[in-house]
């Protein structure tokens, strides 16, 4: 208790005396940026997920071939979840002797829960968003049905036993995208009309769906409840399982945001480490005096530890509150980018902020602050006796442990965190070595220069240890900023380029083998480029290495779903250009007749398919057996046609196949599509431009969020700059006062300070540019799987930016020394 109260008293005195301001500021900024980034990313991510939830028209969807039990709905009501129901089934519509297979969807009033329907009130009218659904007795149709059935708005059609009035054209249906390969055109009616149509018989192929939306915790609760209900034949779908393109876009968006948050932490950690070092130097007298006055090493250590802990708690709390304020400003800034309301903050980032503050202090301050307990009491007589240097193992161990925890925690990706840490550790060693080398190289220059140059150079080499630490601090700061800038500019651009403006926006499916050449010719004649058509064979995976595949073999819903459905298999001579082999090798022409499979890596991981596994598929009642000889990564968000499993021509040839292709169709060439459909009426054309727009919107918002978060990192960078400059403050004050007393003019003193810091910044820039290039290469190639190009501008920016930034900051920090009389300056030491 005594130690606590003494520690708190000392803390209060330190604070008043300004001893702790730098450390506290660094800590507050670290915590504020972590919490604001945490709150912000948490909310934005949830908003992005909600936006993406449009693909399901819900946050969670239950899907069954049987009517859904009433208790499922009741349980949702109890949890205050919003709900809607849809019933979908194929049917035939008759009009004037024309018959057409359609996909009927009967919806309840609240449909869709996420996203909106776009409709047209006349064939030539505008696309309008609506919250309505067809009134009883009304039907809304997909546009392509009108020419097929010779209908117009206002006409009536018969669906089963009931006559319907055609009142609207549906141009966009949010959850349509989740079933891209639904062939038949949409017909939407009110759920209350369904029974009267008499269309639902015992043998009907019906999908009953319950759509749910609400708070994440309520959804989670519902999900775990339903998983304990032992319900057969019900699939639970959420956004991540819905479409791989969107899942990828979301995951990457999240990764970018967390990477940005992690860089803010890294910068603040540098600032905290630098300012703790200075704190220890300045507190050595206190420690020596306390020992002199009879305090034991343990007592001194305890008092400093408690001081640090209370400091950590107070600063973290302050940082957290600032973070909370900042994130609401930020949300206000970007909120309008989202079509929906941003979800309110969860308390989790609050704890993570406090945790971060304490962890940063423990890892980066404690080892050096505890050194204070070992300051020899003899320092009261011999001022040069400082705290013994801290054991490398202890300080590096503590720093790495806390950094590791922080990064894994923030990034949520062990691999990325591990690479960042090892990159940084390697970088740190390089930085220290190069810094030391540069400082040594500067020494001889000093004797060959004159005037301000000599003072500037002398300042750098007067204390090689401090200069190396400064250089390392600045270097690390600039490196982190550069990496972030590159992540932001290069990687985000690359990311967006992965979905270029001319990505395929049309799919043609159900092309029969004898139609392939004709389709190819029409497209070619119309100047449309396409890699396809690709053969598509329906098959079900039944065994992996002689183990039968069933839903019971898997825990994850995605794996269960995959195990339970037909795959689209294909065959190919060459691998598609946007695929990449991650393991094994693609087959050569001599190997075309081997019974081999190529499997997409994500699928292999989900279903537990190892390399060299023997897979057995059932295709049209026949078993096809082959060995997995390579795993591929597939760029799902490219909108090219891609397959989870591809076989060799020898293995797959002769199987019943239809063909599929995708291509980019500019607006002005739409008539070509009409020509194609007229000539081959059985082919289904699917327009995915709406889905693509959605993916693009998610990416764009991700980019904007990263850019906003980038601002925090910049502030953190400024603090590193400040901390670095303060590291040599005492010595500089003393020297400046002496030099001025001896008659050095303010102008020359200013020049020497400017030279000192500009040189320091420029050198840090050189080291950082090299280090950042290596790290960005690793990030781009290993983590984001994007192309990397050397960035020469980065070197220019790093060196000039470092020299200018550090130079200006150094001058600003030194101005008080120049403007105050030397005696006043000396007295402050």
């Amino acid at each position, binding site marked *: 208790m005594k130690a606590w109260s003494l520690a708190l008293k000392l803390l209060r005195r330190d604070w008043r005396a300004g001893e702790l301001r730098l450390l506290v500021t660094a800590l507050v900024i670290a915590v504020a940026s972590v919490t604001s980034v945490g709150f912000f990313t948490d909310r934005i991510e949830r908003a992005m997920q909600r936006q993406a939830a449009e693909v399901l028209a819900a946050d969670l969807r239950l899907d069954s071939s049987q009517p859904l039990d009433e208790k499922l709905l009741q349980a949702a009501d109890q949890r205050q979840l919003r709900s809607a129901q849809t019933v979908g089934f194929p049917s035939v519509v008759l009009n004037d002797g024309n018959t057409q297979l359609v996909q009927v969807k009967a919806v309840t009033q609240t449909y869709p829960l996420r996203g909106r329907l776009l409709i047209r009130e006349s064939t030539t009218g505008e696309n309008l968003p609506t919250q309505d659904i067809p009134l009883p007795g009304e039907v809304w149709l997909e546009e392509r049905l009108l020419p097929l059935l010779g209908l117009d708005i206002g006409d009536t059609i018969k669906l089963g036993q009931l006559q319907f009035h055609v009142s609207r054209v549906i141009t966009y249906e949010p959850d349509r995208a989740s079933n891209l390969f639904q062939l038949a055109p949409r017909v939407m009616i009110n759920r209350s009309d369904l029974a009267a149509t008499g269309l639902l018989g015992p043998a009907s192929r019906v999908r009953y769906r319950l759509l749910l939306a609400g708070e994440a915790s309520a959804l989670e609760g519902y999900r775990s409840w339903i998983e304990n209900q032992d319900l057969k034949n019900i699939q639970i779908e959420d956004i991540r399982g819905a479409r791989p393109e969107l899942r990828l876009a979301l995951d990457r968006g999240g990764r970018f945001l967390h990477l940005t948050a992690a860089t803010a932490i890294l910068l603040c950690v540098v600032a905290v480490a630098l300012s703790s070092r200075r704190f220890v130097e300045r507190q050595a007298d206190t420690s020596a*005096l306390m020992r002199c006055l009879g305090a034991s090493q343990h007592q001194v250590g305890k008092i400093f530890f408690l001081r640090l802990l209370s400091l950590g708690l107070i600063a973290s709390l302050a940082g957290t509150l600032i973070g909370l304020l900042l994130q609401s400003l930020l949300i206000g800034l970007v909120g309008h980018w989202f079509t929906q309301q941003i979800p309110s903050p969860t308390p989790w980032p609050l704890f993570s902020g406090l945790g971060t503050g304490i962890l940063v202090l423990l890892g980066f301050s404690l080892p050096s602050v505890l050194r204070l307990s070992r300051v020899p009491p003899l320092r009261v007589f011999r001022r040069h006796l400082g705290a013994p240097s801290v054991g490398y193992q202890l300080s590096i161990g503590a720093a790495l442990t806390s950094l590791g925890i922080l990064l894994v925690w923030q990034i949520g990706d062990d691999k990325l965190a591990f690479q960042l840490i090892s990159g940084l550790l390697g970088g740190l060693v390089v930085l220290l070595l190069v810094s030391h080398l540069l400082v040594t190289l500067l020494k001889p220059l000093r004797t060959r220069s004159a005037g301000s140059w000599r003072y500037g150079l002398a300042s750098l080499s007067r204390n090689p240890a401090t200069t190396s630490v400064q250089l390392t601090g600045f270097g690390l700061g600039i490196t982190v900023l550069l990496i972030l800038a590159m992540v932001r500019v290069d990687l985000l651009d690359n990311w967006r380029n992965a979905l270029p403006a001319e990505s395929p926006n049309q799919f043609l499916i159900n092309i029969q083998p004898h139609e392939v050449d004709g389709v190819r010719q029409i497209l070619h004649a119309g100047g449309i480029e396409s890699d396809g058509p690709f053969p598509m064979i329906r098959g079900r995976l039944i065994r992996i290495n002689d183990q039968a595949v069933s839903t019971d073999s898997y825990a994850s819903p995605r794996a269960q779903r995959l195990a339970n459905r037909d795959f689209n298999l294909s065959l190919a001579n060459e691998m598609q250009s946007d695929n990449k082999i991650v393991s094994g090798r693609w087959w050569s022409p001599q190997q075309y007749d081997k019974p081999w499979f190529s499997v997409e890596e994500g699928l292999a991981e989900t279903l537990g398919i190892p390399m060299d596994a023997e897979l057995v598929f059932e295709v049209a009642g026949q078993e096809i057996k082959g060995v997995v000889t390579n795993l591929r990564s597939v760029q799902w968000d490219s909108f090219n046609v891609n397959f989870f499993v591809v076989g060799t021509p020898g293995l797959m040839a002769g199987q019943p196949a239809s063909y599929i292709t995708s291509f980019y169709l500019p607006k002005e060439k739409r008539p070509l599509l009409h020509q194609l459909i007229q000539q081959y009426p059985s082919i289904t054309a699917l327009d995915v431009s709406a889905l693509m727009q959605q993916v693009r919107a998610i990416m764009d918002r991700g980019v904007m969020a990263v850019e906003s978060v980038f601002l925090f990192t910049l502030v953190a960078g400024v603090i590193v700059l400040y901390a670095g400059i303060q590291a040599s403050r005492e010595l500089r004050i003393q020297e400046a006062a002496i030099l001025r007393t001896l008659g050095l003019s303010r102008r020359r003193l200013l020049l020497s300070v400017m030279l000192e810091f500009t040189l320091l910044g420029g050198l840090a820039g050189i080291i950082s540019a090299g280090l950042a290039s290596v790290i960005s290469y690793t990030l781009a190639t290993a983590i984001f799987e994007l192309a990397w190009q050397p960035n020469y501008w980065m070197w220019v920016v790093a060196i000039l930016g470092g020299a200018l930034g550090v130079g200006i900051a150094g001058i600003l920090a030194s101005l008080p020394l120049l403007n105050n009389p030397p005696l006043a300056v000396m007295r402050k030491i």
Partner: protein
Amino acid sequence: MLQTSSLQHPVTASGLTKFVDTSEGRLDILQQVDLQVEGGEAVAILGASGSGKSTLLGLLAGLDEASAGEACLFGTPLHTLDEDGRAALRAGKVGFVFQSFQLLSGMTALENVMLPLELAHHPSPDEAAKIALSQAGLSERLHHYPSQLSGGEQQRVAIARAFAPDPTVLFADEPTANLDSHTGERVAEMLFDLQEKNGTVLILVTHDEMLARRCDRRLHLKDGRLDSNR
């Protein structure tokens, strides 16, 4: 070995030796110093710069370890204790006054004086510190920071800090060397007043003969050897 009662001779040294190994060989700083200081006695250790005065003071106070010989504080041989044991021996019973004052710049005069009291778990450090400062004539300066005080005032704060816990032994290292003669005299006056009033043992290191004359005994240190009877 000298066997004396700790009250009779709170500070003793026998054969006290200190040397350091340098690149040019062994450098002797103190050689075979014998010393007995009686309770309430004021002893001056005189010598030129570099004669080893501060080293002797550091060894007697247990701030440093001897190369050979023995120093005892309150009857306890210091070499038998570790750093913490020596600190515990000093706690509340040993005070210091330094040439460069050694006030903590971040603390006010009052807080500086409170520090040793707080470390010794004094029941009311605030009150005791105020009394000590008023005895030093600094009642008006309680909340000033060292940088806002003159040199003399700073040293008076240091003396107040040294006497506040009512120590048995006070080590003073050139307490007036950084002050002008007039201020130095006032500070010395105060130092000896308090010493006499409290019956404190004073071990004073100085090169100032005038100051040394006010002590009960004067010892001269030359080339690391003590010449006591001049």
